């Protein structure tokens, strides 16, 4: 199991992946917006997205869980 966590305070701009999706290492899961920039959050391992913990429009803090990949 790999947990993907936020590296900064950000707004969730786009949720690209869905729970149940099969993803490859490096696939985009969500796109954050911080300091006017788009910051893609990538899968850090290949597998299945077992949980997507954020919704578009959410404000997330550093360390918050974004997704779980099994």
């Amino acid at each position, binding site marked *: 199991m790999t947990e993907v966590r936020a590296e900064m305070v950000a707004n969730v701009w786009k949720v690209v992946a869905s729970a149940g999706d099969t993803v490859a290492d490096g696939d985009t899961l969500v796109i954050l917006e911080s*300091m006017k920039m788009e910051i893609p959050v990538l899968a850090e391992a290949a597998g299945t997205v077992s949980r997507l913990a954020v919704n578009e429009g959410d404000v997330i803090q550093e360390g918050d869980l974004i997704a779980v990949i099994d």
Partner: protein
Amino acid sequence: MSLATGARGTVSAVVTEADTALAAGSGDVPVLATPRLLALAEAATVAAIAPHLARGQTSVGTAVHIEHRRATPVGAQVTADAELTSVDGPRLTFSVTARHVVGSAGGEPGDVIAAGTVERAVVDRARFLARLTG
């Protein structure tokens, strides 16, 4: 994108009545307004990197820290110099310095009137604008 530290830009302007704190609403004295000075400093950062951005890219301001050390009167010529000091992916940091040009009106020409840092982010212009309306 071929942005590297050391890129420099300079802009210059003569202080007009429209540039004063009185006119800008940022004070009530007829000298160069801090927000106008900041705009000049930011213009220098834009000039520093303009030749180095890829087609479709632009940059947007994200943070500023400016010491406004000396007042400059209407008629004075002011230059702002920016140097790119850090590139961290899309995040750029510049050092900026503004001077009262020697030989121009009023005050103490030659002095550094302001100094600080400006941070900007390189973004895709179309995507950036689309996000605001999406």
